[in-house]
């Protein structure tokens, strides 16, 4: 046999888990804002949190083919859990994260039984519906959530009792970045596992996966719950670092925004959501002088351009360029 010997599945998976130099460079670069742009650390923390949220959507949309227009529901559950816990007098951040993960995971687990049964348009409508139901519920339950005015009086204690959340966002950025990195490692391990391979099989062809004996619905329930937990953690981090929660945390706009970021970066690639979130948030910050109405004009143009010209997002375009360059040389 020559070098064309087909590797077994475990070797293939193991080869994928190896760290590429560009990945290491990427994570080292995330530390640069501490020294290069210390005035933008607050924005940096928001980017890291949004990237985490986009990563959780990527797990279900990019890797499992579950299209969701209501993913902000889980983000909002996490944000409100952490926020409420703090208003009730417990502002310890890490246990707050755990509580938010638990609440969002529970809600995700319950709804995953619905999600796993549907595909296509019915699924899009149901995810949209779940998001809207939750938003209306939070709006109506203003005795609990503060309704339209948002949740007031959140105070986050220092991390480990030592690292205080400062005005410049040093702690916030470090906290959000650490959270993003740890969860990224988990997600990376997850999608390079046999379970992750099964998810990609479900994305490509749900019926064939069922035909070869994979428990597709159980897989979908599992990954949906995991994605809900991650979204909940992202929501809790936003609540803790900004010390506010408003209805906007679980609104349709947030679900649509995160979808746009993920598509912009590239779905089904771990870094797609991260790159997309960074590009989107930095662009929005730069254009913040614009009326939000006009900002959405450019988002619309961008969406059409990405769908028409860059079907696999920024990362897909880059890897295409890299392949072409390799073929040329």
């Amino acid at each position: 046999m020559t070098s064309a010997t087909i590797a077994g599945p475990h070797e293939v998976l193991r080869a994928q888990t190896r760290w590429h130099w560009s990945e290491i460079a990427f994570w080292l670069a995330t530390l640069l804002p501490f020294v290069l742009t210390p005035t933008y650390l607050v924005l940096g923390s928001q980017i890291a949190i949004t990237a985490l949220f986009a990563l959780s959507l990527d797990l279900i949309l990019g890797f499992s083919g579950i299209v969701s227009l209501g993913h902000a529901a889980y983000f909002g559950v996490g944000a409100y859990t952490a926020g409420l816990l703090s208003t009730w007098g417990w502002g310890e951040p890490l246990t707050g994260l755990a509580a938010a993960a638990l609440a969002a995971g529970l809600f995700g687990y319950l709804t995953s039984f619905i999600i796993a049964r549907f595909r296509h348009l019915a699924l899009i409508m149901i995810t949209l519906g779940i998001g809207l139901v939750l938003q209306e519920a939070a709006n109506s339950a203003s005795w609990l959530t503060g309704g339209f005015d948002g949740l007031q009086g959140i105070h986050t204690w220092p991390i480990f009792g030592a690292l205080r959340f400062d005005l410049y966002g040093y702690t916030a950025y470090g906290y959000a970045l650490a959270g993003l990195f740890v969860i990224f490692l988990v997600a990376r391990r997850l999608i390079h596992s046999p379970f992750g391979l099964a998810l990609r099989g479900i994305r490509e062809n749900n019926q064939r996966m069922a035909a070869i004996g994979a428990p597709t619905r159980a897989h979908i329930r599992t990954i949906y719950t995991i994605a809900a937990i991650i979204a909940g953690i992202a929501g809790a981090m936003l609540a803790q670092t900004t010390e506010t929660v408003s209805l906007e945390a679980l609104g349709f706009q947030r679900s649509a925004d995160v979808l746009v970021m993920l598509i912009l970066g590239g779905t089904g690639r771990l870094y797609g959501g991260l790159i997309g979130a960074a590009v989107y948030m930095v662009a929005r910050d730069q254009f913040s002088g614009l009326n939000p109405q006009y900002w959405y004009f450019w988002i619309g143009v961008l969406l059409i351009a990405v769908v028409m010209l860059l079907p696999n997002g920024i990362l897909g375009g880059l890897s295409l360029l890299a392949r072409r360059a390799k073929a040329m040389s």
Partner: protein
Amino acid sequence: MPPVFGVLFDGLAYGMLLFLLSVGLSVTLGMMNFVNLAHCSFAMLGGYVTVTLTNDFGWPFFATLPAAFVAAAAASAVLEQVFFRRFYNAGELDQCLLTIGIVFISIAAAAYIYGTINQPVQLPAYLQGSIAFQGLTLSIYRLFLIGIALLITIALVAMLEATRFGAQVRAAVNNQRMARGLGINVDALFALTFALGSGLAGLGGALAIQLVGLDPSFAFTYLIYVLIVVSVGGLGSISGSFAAAMLLGVSDVAGKYYVPAIGAFLIYLVMVVLLMWRPTGIFGRRA
């Protein structure tokens, strides 16, 4: 008569409006499986055409209605040729993203031209006011709306059931590949149906101003209602859309009247539950 009849009447008028707004999407979705989230942008365009023509050019309200229809139909035909056509075989996510992009652009354009305030429309005197009937006060405009929607429904059903065009549309909705195999030009048929459906949405948008107002968020707010009608009624089914629109119209008005605290919550919950029970809609035939 007890107020329940008043609520029923308002609900029916609202349901008629929802039917006009959504029937086009139902047929195009059923035919091409194309998820057009920009459908209500065409409705909004129709609304703004009517507002501009009545307020700035002094056209009578009635003359603006055909103009709203034509403008929305023409705009949708152009977009269909330039963008949508390439996405009939793409996944529903790409279709969603493309059309959400168009919604964003349309909202921003409307806000740029008209501002975010609610646009008033000048109705002719004979459509204003209300008449008393058995102790109920029925708004003349709502009566007019119900009448015009019923006329259009009858015309649509007659066209689909009795004309050659209608038979081709039914064939394409039922089985697109088979229809192609029989030599029906499905692409041309679809372009025409698409323009017709968007035109009806434009007409609905023009008629909606008096009832629900018109501002740039119209394209999103009513998109959700339209999607509920379409997905609950079943794709490609006119009778299903009609029934779902009536159900939604009456329950929305009744919900806001009797339990104002949870009005919209109830609608969304009913939609989720109905979809779980029948994923292809109440009258849906296809899996």
